[in-house]
């Protein structure tokens, strides 16, 4: 009900500017594609309505005075300078208006923050300057990829014409099903980023070392585009967010395809060379381990153990595989078994056993990791 009232109020406001209404997206928030975005949109329109009324009222008084009470018109100054009643009225009336505004504002906020009972949980990791997506729960669990700007350098430099979705296009968009509650767990790997999709009414800072959650449930199919909203260094302006909302069937098909691709890329029976494992392992290490154990493998004294010269790394490989698969209770060492594939774990373990001062020369194969999975 409140929706409709606010929306019609917005229509009335926009009707005052014919020609603008057609391009409303340019002059106002983007067309909402989720219940939260719709609520925010309506709340904003409601606020604007109230504000415009108060603004016009106050400045009608001021401009009346500006025109009527001029000395050039011979107006003599009155000398009143106090009126307790008036003072009380203009303290209490705004207070009442604010209390009334607080009601819808609080309702929307509570809705926005209700991340309970998600259908699908996706971890969003901000990197300088791209986004990592890990499907942690629900249909598609285990899918994991990185999403970076697809606009070419030439377009940015202006040597070729700019495309329609200039700066708002990525190589691998986040794909989610229509009408399902998606919980986003945001974190950062280096500095603070902010994951923002205006049409879905969602913006969450991605803070290194911490996980913050938020959610959306898209009620329209389509491609929704946003950007990193928190200054994160040089290429802050060049790390867009693209979310594709598709039907449940298409989503299932997409998940199947991703799984197949992952399987193809990571044939668990393949035997890798040491060099290939090292190259792959370096990437996995950078994405998953480096935040704590550091690029130089030294860790952070007192908090995160060093891997360089560590017994856990130079000791029996079964122990290390178990540690990576299952994590270590009571510490920050996560269980990566669910997050990484056999090949990735094999690669990263190989990498740690052959980097910095560690020179075991061992190449761990995916089959060895699979053998230890319970």
């Amino acid at each position, binding site marked *: 009900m409140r929706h409709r009232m606010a929306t019609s109020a917005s229509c009335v406001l926009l009707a005052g500017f014919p020609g603008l209404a057609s391009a409303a997206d340019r002059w106002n928030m983007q067309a909402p594609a989720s219940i939260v*975005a719709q609520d925010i949109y309506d709340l904003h329109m409601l606020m604007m309505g109230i504000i415009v009324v108060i603004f016009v009222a106050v400045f009608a008084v*001021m401009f009346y005075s500006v025109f009527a009470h001029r000395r050039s018109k011979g107006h003599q100054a009155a000398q009143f300078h106090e009126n307790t009643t008036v003072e009380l009225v203009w303290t209490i009336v705004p207070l009442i208006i604010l209390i009334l505004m607080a009601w819808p*504002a609080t309702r*929307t906020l509570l809705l926005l923050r209700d991340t309970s009972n998600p259908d699908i949980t996706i971890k969003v990791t901000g990197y300088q300057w791209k986004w990592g997506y890990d499907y942690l729960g629900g249909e598609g669990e285990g899918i994991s990829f990185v999403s970076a700007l697809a606009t070419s350098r030439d377009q940015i430099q202006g040597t070729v014409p700019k495309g329609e979705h200039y*700066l708002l296009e990525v190589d691998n968009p986040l794909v989610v099903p229509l009408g399902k509650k998606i919980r986003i767990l945001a974190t950062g790997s280096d500095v603070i980023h902010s994951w923002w999709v205006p049409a879905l009414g969602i*913006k969450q800072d991605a803070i290194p070392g911490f996980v913050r959650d938020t959610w959306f449930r898209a009620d329209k199919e389509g491609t929704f585009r946003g950007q990193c909203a928190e200054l994160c260094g040089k290429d802050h302006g060049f790390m867009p967010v693209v979310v594709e909302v598709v039907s449940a069937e298409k989503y299932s098909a997409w998940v199947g395809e991703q799984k197949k691709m992952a399987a193809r890329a990571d044939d668990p029976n393949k035997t890798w060379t040491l060099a290939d494992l090292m190259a792959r392992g370096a990437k996995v290490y950078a994405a998953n381990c480096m935040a704590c154990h550091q690029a130089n493998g030294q860790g952070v004294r007192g*908090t995160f153990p060093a891997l360089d010269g560590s017994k856990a790394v130079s000791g029996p490989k079964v122990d290390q595989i178990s540690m990576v698969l299952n994590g270590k209770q009571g510490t920050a060492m996560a269980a990566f078994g669910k997050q990484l594939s056999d090949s990735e774990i094999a690669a990263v373990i190989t990498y740690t056993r052959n980097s910095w001062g560690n020179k075991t020369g061992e190449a761990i194969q995916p089959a060895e990791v699979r053998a230890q999975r319970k």
Partner: protein
Amino acid sequence: MSASIHDTARAGHGGGEDHAHHPSGIMRWVMTTNHKDIGTMYLCFSFAMFLVGGLMAFIIRTELFQPGLQFVAPDFFNQMTTLHGLIMVFGAIMPAFVGFANWQIPMMIGAPDMAFPRMNNWSFWLLPPAALLLVISLFVPGGGPAAGWTMYVPLATQMGPGMDFSIFAVHILGMSSIMGSINIITTILNLRAPGMTMMKLPMFCWTWLITAYLLLAVMPVLAGAVTMILTDRHFGTSFFNAAGGGDPVLYQHIFWFFGHPEVYIIAIPAFGVISQVIPAFSRKPLFGYTAMVYATASIAILSFIVWAHHMYTAGMPVTGQVYFMYATMLIAVPTGVKVFNWVATMWKGSLTFETPMLFAVGFLFMFTMGGFSGLVLSMAAVDVQVHDTYYVVAHFHYVMVAGALFSAFAGVYFWLPKWTGRMYDETLGKWHFWLSMVFFNMTFFVQHFLGLAGMPRRVPDYALQFADFNMISSIGSMGFGVSQVLLPYIVYKAVRHGAKAPQRPWDGADTLEWTHLPAPAPYHSFETPPVVK
């Protein structure tokens, strides 16, 4: 607050014979302990910084004129937005109002000078080295700080030595502000003329008294926050480093505990200037003086308990968000009281619109717009959409430029006849106002639309749907920048060729500097305090 016209002649020429006793040439300015000299230096320094910061804004808006990267690299762009913010806040706006405080507070309360003249000299002379540190940071390896004026970690930890320059600049600026505040508080509390009770204090002095307490409370907090960045950067601490057990969001809490009162440190003295100008040109006493004092104090107190509304998207318990939302909305009440009181002061007055009044009315109109967009931003859910977008950029420029800067312009035109003994060119003054007003709105009004439609702030490049408004905004900003050249010209012209100003050029102005002191105000005024009835 009706000061009696009494003792004019004595107070006026009291210091006449001392004129020759100060050193001449450059040493007059280096050694001076005179509040008027120091006020002048503060104002000139602040205008110089305004030009430097403006040049940076010019670079920013030039790059944003069209989509694509045309003129500067993203790294340099970030340095420009960072330094533009730091320089305008700490170098231009804050010192401008300290300049007004120096010139006006002693004259308005009937004091011979500031309470601690030597410390006053030191407060000023700390500023140029701090400004220099900020500017040279651009030329050290890695360039200037590029983490935004808020210097959020861990990004600030990643910066090169330019960041350390900024940290030390902030330390020095903080020392200067703290000493200035101690001086202002002591002056107002101890040096008032006989009969000038607290509730007869001109509104400008009240606002500065409150502001000085805000500064004392929060500048050390900022110094602490940046010091923690410094030790995180160089001495292995982990205050803000999650990998070492710290918390990057802790920095934001500390920063905004300073940062929100800082907004009012800038705005409240601006309220003070407006509260002098509007009654003077309405020829009617300020409406609701007592309510204004209480409203200002309430705003100051509330400013301490709303800081996390800058962090709605950082992630905090929903109860925390609800609390900060309600507390923030509450600020609209005392702010509203102030606006209503100013309008009521104009109501049934005998209005004239010389340049100071034009700027004051412009302030009133546009500051209220900034206040309203602030109310929109206070709603946590709406803020989630517009946080870190151009909507916020538009909002705080309405408050800082159309608010604080316009009020400073109003103050300069208002008091220039008293400071220099000359009248400025009214026609040029009006041009300055109207050009500023038109170009300001052209620059910043469209940014509301950009933010709503989804353009993030601090980006050197943007998607194509934002192109039109950015172009309008860039053209507006060039116009605004060029219009500001009028101010030094108008001041120069007034000093050189202006008509001699009478003691009280504004017949509605009734504070001590107008009723008791000739124009220009003598070098030493009120050696014998006036008696206020």
